[in-house]
């Protein structure tokens, strides 16, 4: 199971047949393992990792630090889940340290993100404060280093 996840985390486009060949199992076994992982929520989804600048996308990302008042029953969960459901929120984590939630928000431009923060996020009951940090440049995303050359510089034949 770990080997399967490792391969999928590197390249989720591998077909069931390719995964079966690499892991020395049958295609039906692999398909069942993947279904199992999806059903128990171990695999949340699949997507391309895009560097928006190189892709020429109109795109703004921000990290918003959010402080919350925990509720008597359920702590941060109810409010955090509510925030996470907004389409603009790409990722949302409960953090230790100086603030409670790290909310990664995406929008077409600064104004869209700013409006989301001022109109949606900070007006929620229980949100004490927000601090918005706009992302300036991608160096590495989801394990992939931006702008790295993959050329093979080895000599073609060596002992």
């Amino acid at each position, binding site marked *: 199971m770990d*080997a399967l996840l*490792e391969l999928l985390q590197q390249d989720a486009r591998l077909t069931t047949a390719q995964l079966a*060949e*690499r*892991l*020395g199992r049958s295609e039906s076994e692999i398909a069942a393992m993947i279904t199992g992982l999806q059903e128990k929520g171990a695999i949340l989804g699949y997507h391309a990792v895009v560097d928006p600048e190189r892709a020429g996308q109109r795109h703004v990302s921000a990290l918003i630090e959010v402080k919350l008042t925990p509720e008597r029953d359920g702590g941060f969960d109810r409010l955090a889940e509510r925030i996470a459901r907004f389409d603009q929120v790409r990722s949302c984590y409960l953090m230790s340290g100086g603030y409670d939630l790290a909310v990664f928000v995406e929008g077409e431009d600064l104004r869209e993100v700013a409006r989301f923060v001022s109109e949606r996020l900070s007006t929620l009951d229980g949100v004490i404060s927000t601090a918005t940090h706009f992302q300036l440049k991608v160096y590495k995303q989801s394990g992939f280093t931006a702008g790295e050359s993959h050329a*093979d510089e*080895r*000599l*073609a*034949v*060596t*002992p």
Partner: protein
Amino acid sequence: MKPLQERIAKHVRSIPRSGIRDFFELVVGRDDVISLGVGEPDFATPWHIREAAIFSLEKGQTSYTSNLGLLSLRQAIAEYVEGLFKVSYDPASEILVTVGVSEALDLVFRALLDPGDEVIYHEPCYVSYSPSIVLAYGKAVAVQTKVEDNYALRAADVEAAITDRTRVLLLNFPTNPTGAVEPVEELEKIAALAVKHDLIVVSDEIYCELLYSGADGMQPGEHTSIASLPGMKERTVLLHGFSKAFAMTGFRLGYACAPTVLTEAMMKIHQYSMLCASIMSQYAAIEALRNGAPEIERMRRAYAQRRNLMLKRFAEMELPCFSPGGAFYMFPDIRKYGLSSKEFALRLLEEESVAVVPGSAFGPAGEGSVRACYATAYDKIEIAMDRMAAFVKRLG
């Protein structure tokens, strides 16, 4: 004036050009080639190791080191070797850091051989063995390993080659180019021979972390060094380095572990020829030994998957190939096509743009096979195997 060719020392003239070099020149300049002809990892050195090298430069660590190598590195090597090989060496006097295992091989032969002394080694083998022996005025005596033995070395064949001039036995398991692993029972018999005939054993174990065991070949195997067998440490020069398992070929760093007297003799030559290995590489190596294990295992698992792919595809194209236990090479048997290994490799290159190395480059005993390296991206190997399948189908 005498022709310059005649000014070249006779023993240097006697060494033929490397078969690998010849073949390399044919491949160079063709950009459609998928090369299975390399002898090094396709992974860049793990970042934490590269970063340690950079940090050492930033700190201004740009001096010579002790001839033996940094003491802190030798201490780290002693710990690593004890963990992996179950033999303990004194970092103060029994470990010499060299510029790759290649330099260590040169040192050990120069230190041990008088002109005409014989060194027994097994063939097919790494290309430098015979020349290194000849350059040290020794006589290289090849013992053939055979595909029917999975390219393991038979103690009986070694014994048959021993004469009163035999001084050294050179071993390399796992083996480049075959990927062979020596069974422990046979290794024990070879050790007994070394004791009986009072031979020094030089054991190049550069591929020892790259083992594939278990039914699916995915499990790391257990390596047994001849140095760990009873009575062997005192007559063994154990050679290892960072190139293969740590993917550090360009750092050019290896080491020899041997009894003090032998280490001292090798160091004498090393101090006048090389002085010391690069300090930047040495600092990187300390980081590799301390924190490199997870990356080694990650790369080994990737090699294991590629190895399985090649084995499966060779079986499908009915190209006989034994299942290698280590390193990152396959050594399929091409005799049934009636071509020499060089013809096979040349035609495969010209007709399908796949580079493999003719087995004859690894000594006469390698004729009849080619070496295909699986230290290349999985999807490239898939394409190379499709092309090879088309090629051998045409050969019939």
